[in-house]
């Protein structure tokens, strides 16, 4: 496939792997966090970590929008979905995320009309086709997906679709990164910056990471060569003693981001004072809700939601796994009470989560080290 295969060239991958091997200092252990779940996915899909030396470790960050939704929000979503006459729509991977009374998939089996959509516009189409029903879109994601929700909400208003509303769970990337970096026990040497988010927000919002915390950031694309290239660039910064934001994904990410997308977001959303993240707790100014101007399309105002905060299970140590303080298997409940079939914490929820990946692939990873 043209314009795709070029970025998956195995020979170039070997060249980069050799360069990375040459760039690491013997005896030093490097921990690099890929912030975005999309990177985690590519790393597994192509076996990128298999090409890295044993002392370069990739830590999976908080950037999986599905994993970070806390139990209480899932419960609220289910409460809306179970209202009579409601068609509840969400992305497919949200269906399995457990709340305190099970997942949306289980609520669907109990009788709620919950439908998987691929875009918020699909939800709007369902609303137009079912004018006698209330259609709610469960919006999730970072700045990557927030603009498409914003445009859909605007379009619904412009077209006078009154039976469409949105339960907004959009989050922003900078506050959780700051929360991670503020943690005294953080053990990370650098960040692979989120490529998709950066297409919207640009590179500038990440400048605080080198400036305030002294860690390099390289914004990267999602093809395996992009990721290896970004790791190579981070290692180069570390060995040169440089510390800055670099943009590996120039073919897509402009330094200033996408002003039109940011404008649409600013019109439709406003910051919540705080938002809860599964595994990370409350982070101030990290979540978005519909702005006052769009309040009538806010599902949380249109329906009564319990809004009860459900604490993460005590034994769960996702926060420490995310910070790279402990390995998944060092968590007290890993593999016993917390498994991919019955996850407790965020890192076990999605197959991209650090714990789920370790649960499924850990034995294999161990063998690699023996070889």
């Amino acid at each position, binding site marked *: 496939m043209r314009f795709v295969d070029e970025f998956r060239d195995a020979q170039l991958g070997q060249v980069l792997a050799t360069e990375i091997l040459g760039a690491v200092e013997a005896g030093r252990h490097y921990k690099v966090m890929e912030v975005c779940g999309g990177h985690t996915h590519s790393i597994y899909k192509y076996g*990128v970590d*298999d090409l890295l030396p044993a002392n370069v470790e990739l830590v999976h960050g908080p950037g999986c929008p599905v994993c970070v939704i806390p139990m209480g929000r899932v419960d609220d979503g289910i409460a809306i979905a179970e209202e009579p006459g409601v068609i509840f729509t969400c992305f497919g991977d949200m269906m399995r995320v457990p709340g305190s009374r099970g997942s949306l998939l289980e609520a669907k089996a109990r009788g709620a009309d919950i439908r998987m959509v691929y875009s918020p516009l699909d939800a709007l189409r369902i609303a137009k086709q079912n004018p006698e029903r209330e259609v709610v879109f469960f919006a999730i994601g970072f700045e990557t997906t927030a603009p498409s929700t914003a445009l859909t909400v605007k379009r619904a208003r412009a077209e006078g679709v009154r039976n469409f509303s949105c339960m907004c769970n959009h989050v922003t990337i900078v506050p959780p990164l700051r929360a991670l970096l503020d943690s005294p026990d953080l053990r990370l040497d650098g960040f692979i910056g989120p490529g998709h988010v950066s297409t919207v927000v640009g590179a500038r919002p990440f400048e605080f990471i080198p400036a305030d915390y002294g860690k390099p950031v390289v914004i990267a694309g999602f093809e395996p060569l992009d990721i290896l290239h970004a790791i190579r660039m981070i290692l180069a910064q570390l060995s040169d003693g440089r510390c800055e934001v670099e943009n590996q994904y120039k073919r897509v990410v402009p330094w200033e981001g996408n002003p039109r997308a940011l404008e649409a977001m600013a019109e439709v959303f406003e910051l919540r004072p705080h938002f809860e993240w599964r595994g990370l707790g409350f982070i101030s100014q990290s979540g978005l809700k519909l702005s006052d101007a769009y309040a009538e399309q806010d599902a949380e105002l249109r329906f009564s939601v319990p809004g009860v905060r459900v604490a993460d299970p005590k034994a769960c140590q996702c926060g420490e796994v995310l910070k790279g*303080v*402990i390995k998944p298997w060092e968590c007290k409940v890993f593999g016993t009470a917390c*498994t991919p079939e019955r996850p407790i914490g965020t890192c076990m929820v999605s197959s991209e989560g650090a714990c789920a990946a370790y649960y499924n692939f850990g034995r294999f990873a161990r063998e690699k080290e023996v070889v």
Partner: protein
Amino acid sequence: MTAPNTAPPAGREEKILGIIETARGKRAKFRDEHVNMAHGAGGKATQGMIEGLFVPAFASPGLEQLGDAGALSVDGAELAMTTDSFVVKPIRFPGGSIGDLAVNGTVNDLAVSGAQPLALSLSLILEEGLPADDLRREVEAIAAAARAAGVEIITGDTKVVERGHADSMYICTTGLGRRDPRATLSPQGLRPGDRVLLSGSVGEHGTAIMLARDEFELDAEIESDTRSLWPVADALLGAAGEWLHCMRDATRGGVASVLNELARASGVALLVREAAVPVHPAVAGASEILGIDPMYVANEGKLVAFVAPERADEALAALRAVPGCEDAAEIGEVRADPPGMVLVETSFGGKRVMDQLVGDPLPRIC
């Protein structure tokens, strides 16, 4: 909070991985309060329902095998029996229809069990209001597919349910076949060293259905690969005989799910070379856009065969000689370790685990 740099006892990681291995090896349980769509997806939830509910309840040695067809002997005649239901939506799609699937799906379960399909039963569940022309067209499709597969339809049943209680039509077929004496096939038959053969390119049926639903506004010329696999199975039996250890048709959950099931059943590891797996460019393109791995997408006319190295080349040559199987390929091999796992050498040069499907990417494809 764990103190940093306090290395836990070296044995603890081993112990925890050991617990996980034991848990994985155990028979899956059925603990859900309601049936949900994942129970029909062919992944972990389906497995839990089959192994945790059906197998213990029926406690029959034939079922324990969990093959595509059950074996029985009647006065010296070695027979195989299988059954399948079809609920595909939409009922017609590029390359076929529910009627084609209803014949070929059941015929193929017999074929990959090493049994020559002989006869089918046909049960129809029809929704009130179904246009008679739709019914007529599907009956014709069933008749044509049965002729092409060389099976007779010898009995049947029809039920009609109220509008809204079924989605136009559901079909159930049961097939009877004669087990071929040239090989003894079993899901437990995989041996380290066996080569993994695939009868053609993957993911066409699932992709065709996905695009036929018009949910993606994508257009591509992809047709379902629905066909009878008996000629393919027959060619493999002829070329490899006793060296042929197992065959499976890669339907729901795709090639990845079949490989996982068999690695578990046989207690072996499978190594797949991604670059060797044939994928139609249009399927590769659609999968790329939709973020789906074609290895998990359903096929309705592709099988995976496990052949001892002694006859692998002959088997592959025989496979490629079957019309429609020109793209057949050797995609990997059976290894001893780590048992129950499917590993992939990616085209990019890394290695990873090809895991069992947990969720349901696409319901009602067959």
